[in-house]
């Protein structure tokens, strides 16, 4: 069955192939900058997105759909083409681990994408190796890989997923080593009676899926979806989507280890380990995690194994037994069984941020110069790197700050958390911002004890800037957007 179809569609041609190396884009259109100047005046309401009724109008520039699968990212962009069917872009497809019925939900979402697109997606981008962004490729593997139902012209990943890139290899190796240690540490914490801290770490590690290898499996599925696989780098030339007037820029991730490991704006990063300290931590606790005998600090003759120590009157009185000195008899609050693993949670946060910084960040520049920004889960180092980016398009320079200042639509980073939307050199530079989409499910986040997801202050500021045009997965569409947003149980969709 599959054979029949594949024969029909042998080796689809990549629309980026070859173009990447060229310095010039086809001069079929006027320069985007000029269009921006002329067209923006014609727009019906400058402050508001187009209304839904205009969807079929000639003025339709793009439709952006955010699926409402839960805490996770899955976006579908519909870009009209002069001839024939629209150009479809899917960015990410995942939901956080622990979501009830996740498999069914994601299959439902993928099925819906197939129906909408008629089984043909021109561009699929998977931003980074986190479960809440790519779980759907594993959970609905059959649907994705069924060439009879779905064809995908081209797949984009970030250079950090490129197995041949030396820096990507190095970073991946480090993350894997740290992840294994942290998993073991979390297990030890759970066993030594500290389930809360263990949960905290497990919660952060759950971004890598339920068991070892599950996110890399999902990513493997993504890699196999098209022969045209591109590992994007910010220095690559922007890509013009064929038969549209949309140009796509890859802003991140920065090809710079220091920036990948920069997680917050302050210079000092007071609460985190430096890279050396991280290695030191691994050196310190790994032997103890892997075996209890090696590297014992004292000679065997001093060692009293815990089961024997537990029977000694002294340790009964001052550690395991009841506290006869206090009115409070239970002295478990004073025990330190898991304290040696406490620093693990700081490291789990770093691992999380380091992975988030490998995000593929895409800016879609529309024909009139307006920009849609999909920031994935990029953290500070990724954001800062955009400042120095610059491309030559039709002989003119386009810079990172330039794209930021023309951003009208912003896919809010990392479900609206603190350090995933830079304030200065970030949000405050988005002078044209009209709509923000936040793929967040606060109730689910709270279940994971991530009470700060989304960050209230950030939501407030976004509402202020966009004049209450902030759309969230877990909320109904705000009143003043009702006209331009189609809202169903399964998705919110805005027409721009």
């Amino acid at each position, binding site marked *: 069955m599959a054979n029949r179809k594949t024969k029909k569609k042998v080796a689809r041609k990549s629309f980026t192939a070859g173009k990447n190396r060229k310095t010039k884009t086809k001069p079929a259109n006027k320069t985007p900058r000029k269009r921006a100047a002329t067209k923006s005046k014609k727009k019906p309401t400058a402050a508001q997105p187009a209304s839904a009724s205009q969807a079929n109008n000639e003025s339709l520039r793009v439709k952006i759909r955010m699926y409402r699968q839960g805490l996770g990212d899955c976006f579908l962009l519909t870009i009209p083409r002069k001839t024939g069917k629209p150009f479809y872009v899917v960015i990410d497809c995942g939901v956080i681990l622990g979501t009830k019925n996740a498999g069914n939900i994601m299959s439902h979402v993928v099925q819906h994408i197939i129906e909408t697109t008629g089984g043909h997606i021109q561009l699929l981008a998977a931003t980074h190796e986190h479960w809440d962004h790519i779980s759907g490729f594993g959970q609905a593997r059959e649907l994705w890989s069924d060439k009879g139902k779905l064809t995908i012209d081209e797949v984009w990943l970030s250079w950090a997923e490129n197995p041949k890139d030396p820096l990507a290899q190095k970073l991946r190796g480090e993350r894997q080593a740290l992840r294994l240690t942290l998993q073991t540490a979390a297990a030890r914490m759970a066993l030594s009676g500290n389930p809360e801290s263990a949960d905290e770490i497990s919660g952060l590690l759950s971004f890598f899926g*339920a068991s070892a290898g599950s996110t890399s499996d999902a990513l493997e599925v993504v890699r196999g979806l098209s022969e045209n696989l591109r590992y994007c780098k910010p220095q690559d030339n922007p890509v013009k989507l064929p038969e549209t007037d949309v140009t796509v820029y890859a802003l991140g991730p920065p090809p710079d280890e220091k920036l990948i490991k920069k997680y*917050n704006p302050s210079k000092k990063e007071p609460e985190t380990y430096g890279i050396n300290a991280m290695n030191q931590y691994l050196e*310190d606790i790994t032997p103890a995690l892997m075996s209890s005998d090696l590297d014992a600090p004292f000679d065997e003759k001093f060692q009293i*194994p815990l089961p*024997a120590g537990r029977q000694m009157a002294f340790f009964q009185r001052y550690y395991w037994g009841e506290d006869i000195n206090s009115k409070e008899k239970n002295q478990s609050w004073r*025990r330190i069984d898991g304290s040696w693993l406490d620093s693990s949670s700081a490291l789990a946060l770093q691992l999380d941020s380091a992975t988030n910084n490998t995000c593929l960040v895409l800016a879609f520049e529309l024909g009139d110069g307006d920009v849609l920004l999909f920031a994935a889960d990029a953290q500070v180092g990724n954001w800062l790197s955009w400042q120095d980016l610059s491309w030559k398009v039709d002989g003119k320079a386009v810079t990172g700050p330039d794209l930021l200042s023309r951003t009208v639509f912003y896919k809010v980073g990392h479900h609206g958390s603190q350090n995933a939307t830079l304030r200065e050199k970030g949000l405050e530079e988005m002078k044209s911002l009209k709509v923000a989409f936040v793929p967040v499910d606060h109730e689910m986040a709270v279940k994971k004890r991530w009470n700060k997801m989304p960050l209230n202050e950030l939501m407030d500021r976004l509402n202020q800037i966009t004049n209450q045009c902030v759309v969230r997965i877990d909320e109904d569409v705000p009143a003043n957007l009702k006209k331009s947003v189609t809202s169903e149980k399964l998705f919110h969709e805005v027409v721009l």
Partner: protein
Amino acid sequence: MQSITRKPKLLVKMPTGPPRLALAFGSSKFQVSLEPLFKSIKASGQARIAKAPEWQILTATTSADEVNAWDLCHQVISKGMGIAGLGAVEFAEPDIEQQWIFGEEAEHALAGVGPCERPQDPDTRLPMGNGFYWFRDPTHSQLQLAREELGQPAKRIRIAHFDTGYDAHHITRPQFLRTDLQRNFVDDGLPGDATDHSTGVFNNLGHGTGTLSILAGAAVDGSPLGGAAFLDVIPIRVANSVVLFKNSAIAQAFDYIHSLANDPNTQVHVITMSMGGLASQAWAEAVNALYDLGVFIVTAAGNNFGNFPTHNIVYPARFKRVVAACGVMADGRPYADLPVKIMAGNYGPEKKMSSALAAFTPNTPWARLGCSELVDHNGRGTSAATPQIASAAALWIQKFKSKWENYSQSWMRVEAVRKALFDAARLVSSAQSSRLGHGIIQAQATLAQSPAKEAALTKQPADKASFPLLRVITGLGLVSPDARQRMLELEALQLAQQSHELEQLLPDPEDDPLDLTVAQRQQVIDALASTPGASRNLREALGKRARGISPEVTVPGQVKTADSAALERAMNPSLPSPVTRMLQVFAFDPLLGTKLETVGLNKTNLSVRWEKLEPGPVGDYLEVVDVDPATGVCYAPVDLNHALPLSQSGLSPSETNPQFHQQMAYAVAMKTIEHFEYALGRVALWAPRIVKTKSKVEVYFVPRLRIYPHAVREANSFYSPEKISLLFGYFLASESNPGENLPGQTVFCCLSHDIVAHETTHALLDGLHRRFREPTNADVLAFHEAFADIVALFQHFTVPEALRDQIARTRGDLAQQSLLGELAQQFGQGIGRYGALRSAIGYVENGHWHQAVPSTGDYQNATEAHDRGAVLVAAIFDAFLSIYRKRSSDLVRLATGGTGVLQPGAIPHELVERLAQEASKTASQVLNICIRALDYCPPVDMTFGDYVRALITADRDLVPDDDLGYRVAFTEAFRRRGIYPQLVRNLSTESVCWDSPELDLDIHVCLQQMSLTWDLHANRKRAYDSSRHNAYIFHEWIKKRVSDDEALSLGFYRSENSTLKVENEVGTLSRFEVHSVRPVRRVGPDGQQQLDLVVEITQTWRPSNRSFDKYRGGCTLIIDLESQRIRYCIRKRVGHAERIGAQQGFRLSMADSSIRSNYFDDTTDRHEPFAMLHRGA
């Protein structure tokens, strides 16, 4: 077992009552709910009568004060449930939550997270048979042969598998898994789902998946894994994923099996359970009921390490009506009595072994949960042995099913299986029966045994959980003990099961107590009575018989009173207590001992105040507890009162001896405490332990700071405010980048004089000002660190050994006085600490040390906590240098005949000695001044500017005339670094000192009611109590006698729960709190020492729409007890708009710089703020 609990759970046998009721016990009041434990098992033999007592689970739904669950049980028996007409409670026992030990934590954790790529290897320390499935081969259990003999029966008998559940997707999942009958007694809301599901990343231990694969695992390599692969298996989940189970869950599972017996289609023939623990009466009754129904039960004998805590078989395996599964290894040796670090199986007591069998372990196959195609090779413990016996029994029943069902009495079925298994078992020598019971199971040989004739079967007497010795002890005789007595026995039995000592004294608690000598009995009584966790009821029952301590010789009663007293004295002459105890320590840290030029000066003696010490050392202030969980060991506590260390200033410094580490940590920490007490003129207190429950806040006095010398494996040490403990780390110096250390050498933080003093200071400061660890501005956290550093630094300077050699060696540098700064910087360098903090003092350039040049921008420009702290340390150090220079200049002039220029060559030893003394004396004075200032600080939101004012005011109060210019030295040093108090016009002493309050309050009445006897000789508990009492009096006084306006002038509001608007933001004020009332010393105008009083008052304002935000304010009052007036009011107004704005901004900037705030509410580590701060260093 934790018998002490805030939320008790009991199993109670009583008539059915209302589902909810209230239960009072002493001061604790619990809301409890009741639900039936047994639905099928009813009071045996009795006809159903209304109000017959039945087992029920009593669960407290609210928590209250701690109770001992056993004492609560006794109260329920003696006083009932407090409901008239409910009828008597027949029996009650705690519903214990128990952990099944079946391996080491480290192994479990690794197994749990390992990738599904390859199986875990067998333990090579222990034997293993041929091939990975050796346990079932003809030379071992013969299970494969037996299974093949039976083939695939048409009508399958049923085995109930009690465990953590099963993995629905594993290839070993049994072919005939009766999921229609599965049950879950662990997770609420999932009664019909026994899968062992894991959430999150940590795959759980998968114990049930492992045992199930041995029992009835489906084909792996063509041949089924388990012996009972072709029989029905009913999965029952009785324990959670880490094999933690409640007694009630197992009892309910037994009851469920009981309920299935009525229907021949569901009837269960065999129960297997690879876990167990402490005895339970409810279990005993369930086991008896199932025996009467003909259900064969086999459970695991239990595991131990080095026979700790006991090698005796656990319950329910210990019941005679249950077969205990012991272990035998592949080579036929008993799986018992192995080295202490290797897990072994339980055995004994002797009488139990007549109903015990052995099966193979360790290194059996073990299906791994979550890895659907993986079978590990390291199945171990009696967990692995149990299912082998169960499957052998089941195969036999299957073979002789019709005959077996025809026994006239149901119990005979159990006995018939047992006889067949026992008779066929192989025992190489009778000597092994003490470990293997009837011997090693032989499944095929068992099938050759026909069912025995009825006459050949003997009924086992009913099982109970008893401790006959207690009946003799309590004089109640051996017959028909009442409920109370039986409960005492059960408790004693549970205690004995957990005590190595009791096991040694009384190998079998069920032995005839009359066989014991009186002395032996007495030992058991003493041991029981002194067991931690024993209930008051049990202690009282043993009470009179437990040995007290009596004097060796007593004076006869006939002697006249006066004479008697004199004689008493003569016989027991009192010894004067020594004043100090000398203890050896490293003067710096061990690193210096490894360098040739410093090897000589690395040891010194500290003279520590004499106190009564117990091993640990445990004294009045400190308790050193040396547990090292990362390594999985403890180190014996040092006994400094032992004649040998006592006679030679303690143990000599050694890195390799943990007992010396304990001694050094104790000595240095005590020294820090002494400095505090000397400076403050009163005994020091630790922060109290505060427990917040839903209904109230409990505050407990903490007599001792706990010190863990080897708590963590990292280059970090910290004070834990939550545990009120110091946790010291150790780590291996990096192989690649060892710094000053030897590569691969272990570095111990507790051997650094500085680190111990630093951490102790954190604890002392927290005891004084607990709000100082709330980061409300950049200075607060910086202050905690800087202050701890200042104390560590100057305490170190008070040790002349630390100075003498440097002064002598660098004589030429004396003029610049740089050596002390250099020395200061060197402190702690080996540990890699303080680098940032002390770099403010100076720097090394071209091999020469230079003092840093201060600038008035230093303070403003340092925004980060460590940098800011460094500025304060540098300022204090600068002041110290000026004072020292002044004090030593005369010595240099004397030594140089007035020129001040030293001759070339070594300077005279006497001069070195005098200069060192001078420096040491100056250091201790500076230390005093710095510590005394703490009493003059605001209670919240401290800034460095506040500290400057506190320091100058405190010093002026103690030393009214400043002829040596100390205060000038300090203000000058602060000024040069830009540390200014707010709203102060100039830096003259007068304007820097705190102001007196605007209002003159009459506090006469209030002071009269207070008890003010807290000084250096006070009992610390009493000091603590009187401080709290005084705080209460002060609080009442403000409430009743102070007007709203007056309170407002002190910086807070009298009314509680009122709303307060700050800059358009509405918020709520909490009740004002009086935190601390403590005495402070000063010198009166007549030169007489006087005590003043410090009172701290705080209040919290919470904005209504941001309820997680807290903004505190309040004041510190210093009250002159002589004139009964408030001398100073150091105020931080509550609801002060500017301060609130600043604090808000600071909080945001903290959140900005923290990746924690991507997810969590708390930006700093919840529990260990200091650990966090130190890691950043």
